[in-house]
């Protein structure tokens, strides 16, 4: 690992200042992706800014929403009784990320800021129609994810919390790579009063995306059979040693049906 200066600011303003003033500075949340990246020398930050002293963790229910602090750990999301009761798909999803020790350190904000195309959370945030709160503004999930490892975040902008509307029903289904445990295809489905939203991770070349044709069919009839016969074009899907784009296209149908069956 290349060496860097380490800072642990105690105010959000200080953290933003350091990160905004230096293009080579990087924020450190849980570090469960970032530190392995540093170890492989795939990134060479001048300064690493640890966000752990900014008071950004915690889960609160606020009316028809659940608000999750950006530094909240996967393990705390998986075991939180409010999330288990109100957004069971999210609690289940968090329990499938990495392994026990990784879930004890990894955070929701870190995962969203990284926007790995095979990460789990982007599918939940997009399907739930969440809002990403930062030090300076609110960003709708539909505008936040902008392609593989790319988000709407500006230089030095820090996610502070994630606001999630409580849906009527939710479920996550993950078809895992047997070795890495990352999603080859992951589907999060959420039934809202206003209609169904369904988001897919792991499969798209541009990262997470919504499947509008399935959403339309499921909004009319929330059952696995409603999406029978909906074909997903393989053109924009990933193809790698683990799965071809055609196979991923097929899996999207299968995994979506499983997700709907689980939620319904």
């Amino acid at each position: 690992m290349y060496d860097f200066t380490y800072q642990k600011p105690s105010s959000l303003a200080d953290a933003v200042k350091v990160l905004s003033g230096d293009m080579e500075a990087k924020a450190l949340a849980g570090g469960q992706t970032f530190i392995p990246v540093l170890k492989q020398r795939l990134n060479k930050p001048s300064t690493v800014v640890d966000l752990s002293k900014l008071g950004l963790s915690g889960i609160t229910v606020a009316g028809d929403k659940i608000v999750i602090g950006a530094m909240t750990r996967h393990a705390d999301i998986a075991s939180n009784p409010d999330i288990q009761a109100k957004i069971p798909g999210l609690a289940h999803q968090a329990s499938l990320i990495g392994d026990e020790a990784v879930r004890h350190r990894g955070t929701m904000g870190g995962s969203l800021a990284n926007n790995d195309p095979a990460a789990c959370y982007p599918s939940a945030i997009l399907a739930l129609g969440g809002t990403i709160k930062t030090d300076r503004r609110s960003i709708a999930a539909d505008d936040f994810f902008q392609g593989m490892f790319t988000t709407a975040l500006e230089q030095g902008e820090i996610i502070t919390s994630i606001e999630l509307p409580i849906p009527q029903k939710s479920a996550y289904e993950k078809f895992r790579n047997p070795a890495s445990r990352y999603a080859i295809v992951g589907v999060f489905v959420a039934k809202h009063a206003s209609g169904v939203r369904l988001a897919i991770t792991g499969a798209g070349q541009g990262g997470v995306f919504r499947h509008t044709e399935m959403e339309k069919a499921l909004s009319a009839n929330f059952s696995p059979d409603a999406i029978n016969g909906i074909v997903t074009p393989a053109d924009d899907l990933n193809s790698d040693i683990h799965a071809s784009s055609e196979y991923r296209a097929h899996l999207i149908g299968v995994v979506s049906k499983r997700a709907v069956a689980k939620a319904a």
Partner: protein
Amino acid sequence: MPQVTLTVNGKQHTVEVEGRTLLVELLREKLGLTGTHIGCDTSQCGACVVHVDGISVKSCTQLALQADGAKVTTIEGLAAADGTLHPMQEMFREHHALQCGFCTPGMVMTAIDLVESHPAGLTEKEIREGLEGNLCRCTGYHNIVKAIAAAHPLMHAKAAE
């Protein structure tokens, strides 16, 4: 050089480190606690698992400076001063839950957190899922699972005393 102050196995240390020093490097190279192993360097194998403030973490995936002010327990901190093994260590011995032993420190630390966080009991499935982040290349999982199941009542009986 920056300094980090932390408590390891009940003893406080203040150590000079670099920004990039990993917790596992601090433990092994600065404090000489080589019971915590580095197996893969890619955060997958779990041989480096220690407890930070009571929670199992991969010490190869945490900077030493992140552990400032923390209480760390390593495999060396489990046995009593007179050499009496921790019940989990005892059950690993009893059930022959190791072959080459390389993964054992991480397995034991993960297993203790798993048992402590499931006071009501652990199914075999839960034990196997709980070990997802610990790899044993001698294929010794069966006996590891048996050892953890056997340690559960011992650890909770002891906690109830």
